[in-house]
């Protein structure tokens, strides 16, 4: 339960909504309302969509504030254009990649979903999907269809080096002015801001080593020729 809550809070953070303003949000794959509760607690109004009547029933028992709809994301968004200030989805998007019946065609369903979602979002707003793609191919299919539908943005991977903590968020922008992708959590910054500003390569990296060798050559010093082994990372005590 706590995990879902954390994922929802992070997704909400990635939405970058204006501070202290109540917004109207869409919760895709809202399930039993855990993510919706996070939205309510942050002062927002939301509408939840889920394909499982059983899960929605649980959400009702929990007396969630948001209105619930029984529906299939792959059929498209049944709303007027520009209705929502943002959309979140926790652990649901990968299900669109499954062909649950002979008639289902995942790429087409994904495309229908993304194009209609784009339409029901206000210009300049975002859609954030926390997802568990089965493999790279699935991830590519999802991101590809979202771009074809007109979204910009990309993947934010928190704690990319930890198998346990790693979480993926597809952060999409629905038009508006160009925005930069939010920073992922758990990624070490190897340079200070000043060093980045100066345009120097980070200390001891391969580029730094190559630049240093070039400087020495210019000074007329005797320098070994560069090879594919130059500046490579060496394990432990050398």
């Amino acid at each position, binding site marked *: 339960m706590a995990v879902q809550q954390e994922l929802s809070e992070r997704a909400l953070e990635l939405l970058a909504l204006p501070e202290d303003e*109540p917004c109207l949000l869409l919760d895709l794959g809202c399930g039993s309302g855990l993510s919706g509760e996070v939205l309510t607690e942050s002062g927002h109004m939301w509408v939840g969509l889920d394909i499982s009547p059983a899960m929605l029933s649980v959400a009702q028992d929990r007396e969630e504030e948001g*209105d619930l709809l029984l529906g*299939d994301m792959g*059929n498209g968004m049944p709303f007027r254009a520009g209705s929502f200030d943002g959309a979140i989805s926790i652990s649901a998007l990968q299900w669109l990649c499954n062909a649950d019946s002979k008639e289902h065609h995942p790429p087409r369903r994904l495309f229908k979903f993304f194009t209609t979602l784009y339409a029901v979002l206000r210009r300049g707003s975002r859609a954030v999907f926390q997802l568990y793609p089965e493999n790279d191919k699935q991830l590519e299919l999802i991101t590809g269809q979202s771009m074809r539908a007109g979204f910009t943005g990309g993947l934010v991977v928190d704690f990319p080096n930890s198998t346990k903590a790693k979480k993926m968020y597809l952060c999409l922008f629905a038009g508006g002015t160009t925005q930069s992708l939010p920073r992922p959590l758990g990624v070490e910054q190897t340079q200070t801001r000043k060093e980045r500003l100066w345009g120097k390569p980070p200390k001891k990296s391969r580029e730094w080593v190559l630049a240093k060798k070039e400087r020495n050559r210019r000074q007329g010093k005797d320098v070994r020729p560069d090879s594919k082994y130059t500046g490579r990372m060496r394990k432990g005590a050398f």
Partner: protein
Amino acid sequence: MKLFTHNLLTSSIIKGVTKGYPLKIVSRKVEISEKEFNPELIARLLSRVEWSALCEAAESVGHGGDLPTSVPENAEKDEEFLRKAHHVLMEIEVVDGDLVCPETGRQFPIQNGIPNMLLNEGEV
């Protein structure tokens, strides 16, 4: 289903439907509840409410009475108006009934306050 949500819903997901709005409400059970009044939220939501569709919907569930025919000037500061809007948008819920597509007549049942927007194979 609150009347606010109904105001956003369309049947445009059905193949061949152009606009699919507004959906007609056939209500069998309507509940009035009390919800916390948040003027800031209501003011914000007003910009995306289709007022005439809202009045029509309120009328069709038997709670049309009090509403002005159009949104007044400076509605965001008009607390009396915001309270009326809040009541109609948030406190009237259709628990049992149907939503009907204005173009195809297709019915979407509402059970336990949840509209069923699932489509059949041929409609996608």
